[in-house]
């Protein structure tokens, strides 16, 4: 359906169609966020031998997050007197918008994919970088020392891990010869890149966890150390948008990992009768699960360890990965 | 969707360039001066890309050129900022007007 729309001549009607598709996707994402938070708390609870949310919405606390959101919606929204007001207001939007925007290029299944652009991967990387600006702006606009420090740390961490992240996917680009995510999925018809590019996967996974500011890389918002981080002055729904951005990114990043390394909707050989959407869902959920698992398992890193790890381990490894990949390609070409 | 004429890109680029030039020459804040220079370079990029798409004998070269421009612009910005930081640490100002100790 979407494919047909993409191929038809642009018109107002069809633009409206796009809009509706977008709204649908937004709903899906919001739904995901709602239950991802719940799932996270449940899984963490499970791993820590406790129950997690279990009051609101039945035994499994199914409405817990919904209630949280409603609470946030009803909370008073304070803007500090000393804050840079326009910047303070606009910062959560800057942080959130790119998070949703990147989803536009992710092909979820063969049929459910939105924008099909040649430089999809680059688009993702470029747009996702904007969030850092939102976080910086929020921290700066708060005019609060904790917020500023938190935002600076967060920005430093995000940019530091962005480089290994970006460099690790070059291996995949080398093998595919395209930046189009659909092409990348098609390339994994037989073997997923997880097996061809294990090093890249390792780097990518770690870097993406860091990019998402999740434990063990959650220094920017380490409640126990830093009060709260860059959003300490935010309250109510403005705060919610920072959180929303993070979980939307979780969605996006997990999807991207699935697409890049796990073959997207591609089925495992001989199991092609199962529809692509299911495959994608399975892979996607396992990635999310791994991320939660990591959160439950690893202790938080120290700030200096965090930076050193990014620059002194991951980046050289990423460079090495490019190097190895090209050499392998060269070897295959000559023999 | 009709394609935008080349001249529109060129005029935009020219405007950007002039804005950048104006900013670089008149602004007092050193950071803004650096940003203005970036603006000028981006005007060049716009020109190059527009020419590469719609220009005479359109070719990929313009895009390649713009890649180089981007990189070099980044390097230039990095060097400029590094120097600005050093300056700020010594003088505690980013006001261009106050950079007048070199005279006579």
């Amino acid at each position: 359906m979407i494919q047909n729309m993409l191929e038809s001549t642009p018109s107002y009607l069809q633009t409206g169609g796009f809009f509706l598709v977008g709204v649908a996707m937004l709903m899906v994402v919001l739904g995901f966020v709602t239950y991802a938070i719940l799932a996270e708390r449940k899984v963490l609870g499970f791993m820590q031998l406790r129950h997690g949310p279990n009051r609101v919405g039945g035994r499994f606390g199914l409405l817990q997050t919904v209630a949280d959101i409603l609470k946030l919606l009803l909370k008073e929204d304070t803007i500090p007197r000393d804050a840079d007001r326009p910047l303070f207001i606009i910062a959560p939007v800057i942080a959130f918008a790119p998070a949703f925007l990147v989803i536009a290029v992710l092909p979820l299944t063969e049929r459910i994919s939105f924008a099909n652009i040649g430089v999809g991967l680059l688009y993702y990387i470029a747009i996702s970088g904007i969030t850092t600006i939102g976080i910086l702006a929020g921290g700066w606009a708060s005019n609060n020392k904790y917020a500023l420090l938190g935002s600076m740390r967060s920005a430093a961490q995000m940019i530091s891990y962005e480089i290994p992240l970006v460099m690790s996917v070059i291996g995949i680009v080398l093998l595919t010869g395209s930046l189009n995510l659909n092409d990348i999925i098609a390339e994994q018809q037989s073997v997923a890149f997880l097996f061809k590019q294990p090093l890249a996967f390792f780097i990518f996974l770690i870097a993406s966890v860091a990019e998402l500011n999740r434990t063990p890389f959650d220094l920017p918002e380490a409640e126990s150390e830093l009060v709260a981080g860059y959003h300490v002055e935010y309250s109510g729904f403005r705060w919610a948008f920072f959180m929303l951005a993070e979980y939307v990114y979780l969605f996006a990043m997990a999807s991207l990992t699935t697409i890049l390394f796990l073959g997207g909707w591609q089925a495992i050989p001989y199991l092609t009768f199962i529809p692509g959407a299911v495959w994608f869902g399975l892979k996607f959920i396992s990635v999310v699960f791994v991320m939660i698992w990591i959160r439950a398992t690893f202790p938080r890193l120290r700030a200096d360890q965090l930076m050193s790890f990014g620059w002194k381990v991951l980046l050289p490894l990423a460079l090495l990965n490019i190097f190895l990949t090209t050499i392998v390609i060269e070897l295959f070409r000559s023999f | 969707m009709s394609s935008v004429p080349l001249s529109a890109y060129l005029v935009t680029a020219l405007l950007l360039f002039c804005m950048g030039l104006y900013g670089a020459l008149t602004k007092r804040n050193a950071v803004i001066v650096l940003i203005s220079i970036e603006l000028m370079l981006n005007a060049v990029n716009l020109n190059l890309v527009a020419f590469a798409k719609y220009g005479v004998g359109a070719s990929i070269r313009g895009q390649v050129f713009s890649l180089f421009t981007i990189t070099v612009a980044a390097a230039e910005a990095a060097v400029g900022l590094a120097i600005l930081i050093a300056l700020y640490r010594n003088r505690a100002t980013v006001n261009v007007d106050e950079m007048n100790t070199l005279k006579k």
Partner: protein
Amino acid sequence: MGESLNVYQNSYLFVIMFLILALLLPAIALTAGRFLRPSKPSAEKQTTYESGIEPFHQSWIQYNVRYYLFGLLFVIFDVETVFLYPWAVAYQKLGFFAFIEMMLFIIMLFIGLLYAWKKKVLKWI
């Protein structure tokens, strides 16, 4: 041709739709919130939070130069990927020369990293 051009244009139309939505959602949510939530501002509430003590100084102070250094490093390395991506995309068609060239490039990048490393730029406070 027509179809691929359509795909091309529609794809960006999609992106624009997503952008509109991404901006609309906060706008709607915050506007809705305005009617729902209470608003009783007071001077106490609006002071900046500093763990309970009265805030002193502006916080727009000079922060540690480390952040800048990382920023600069990021700019350099991130922009170098500008060369790596097109190279990686076209690599299969380019041949051996591209291999040599990029190896040199990566080695140069690595030397740059090494330089920063040895100069203690990568050391966090």
